[in-house]
């Protein structure tokens, strides 16, 4: 019989699925129960976004500054750098000195980008 990779189900992951289902069910159940029991008397001021604050001005769906985008992009890239470090850290002893130096090269190349971002002022907010 030809064995495909999925033929052996990782059944030790089923609690994760159960957990996800319980989380979704909890959200649905609590909101539904609340819907049946809460009094519903909507008014103009109650439905406004900030019920007890200043009257809202303009629209919440405004355009954001591009500064957020730079921060998010840098976050994603350094996040990926960390992802590469996880299997390396686990295999650190098996890989030996060679593994250490190849990761140094990897980090050095990304450090160039980090220094570039710093010098360009991409990390400054103003």
């Amino acid at each position, binding site marked *: 019989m*030809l*064995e495909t*990779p*999925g*033929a*052996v*189900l*990782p059944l030790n*992951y089923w609690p*994760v*699925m159960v957990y996800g289902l319980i989380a979704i069910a909890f959200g649905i159940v609590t909101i539904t129960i609340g819907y049946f029991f809460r009094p519903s008397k909507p008014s103009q001021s109650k439905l406004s976004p900030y019920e007890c604050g200043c009257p809202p001005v303009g*629209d919440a*769906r405004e*355009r*954001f500054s*591009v*500064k*957020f*985008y*730079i921060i*998010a*992009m*840098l*976050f*994603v*890239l350094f*996040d*990926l*750098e960390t*992802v*590469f470090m*996880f*299997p*390396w850290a*686990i*295999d650190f002893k*098996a*890989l030996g000195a060679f*593994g250490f130096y*190849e*990761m140094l*090269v*990897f*980090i050095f*190349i*990304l450090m*160039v*980008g980090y220094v*570039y*971002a710093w010098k*360009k*002022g*991409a990390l400054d907010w103003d």
Partner: protein
Amino acid sequence: MLLQTGFIYFATVIVVCALMVITRKNPVHSVLFMLPLFFHVAGIFIMLNAEFVAAVQVLVYAGAIMVLFLFVVMLLNIQKERVRPRVGLKWTFTAPLGLTLFGFLVAILVRSQYNGTQGSFTIEAVKQIGNSQAIGQVLYTDFLFPFEVASVILLVAMVGAIVLAKKRLD
């Protein structure tokens, strides 16, 4: 049986979510439909016994890429984007392009040969040494060059993002 049911469930949700992403008028809704999509892709990876890839899928895609997409959407003028129909936009140009790509994928699928030969990393072997350990053993030895190239690609992305975004600011 369990395997087929699981795969059909994950695949259906992925396809439905993907269709929702490209047909929603509000870009924010499109991005939010990507979230269940990413989680179900992670589910398919789990079913393939690729635990590390599944974890990375959730961490990077559902965590980081999603945020990036939301930021990009918020850079747009949503009120203006909302009234523009998603399907039917330059249809005569995009449809042949998409169909050609689809044809390529089908051709690859049909021409590929599945003879069932296995490498040294079978499911049993991977389970023996551990999923992340197996990836580390191969990635940092046999695939050393692609690994270092990955850092250069990340550097290019970093510099590109800063150049594109900073030019607007200054």
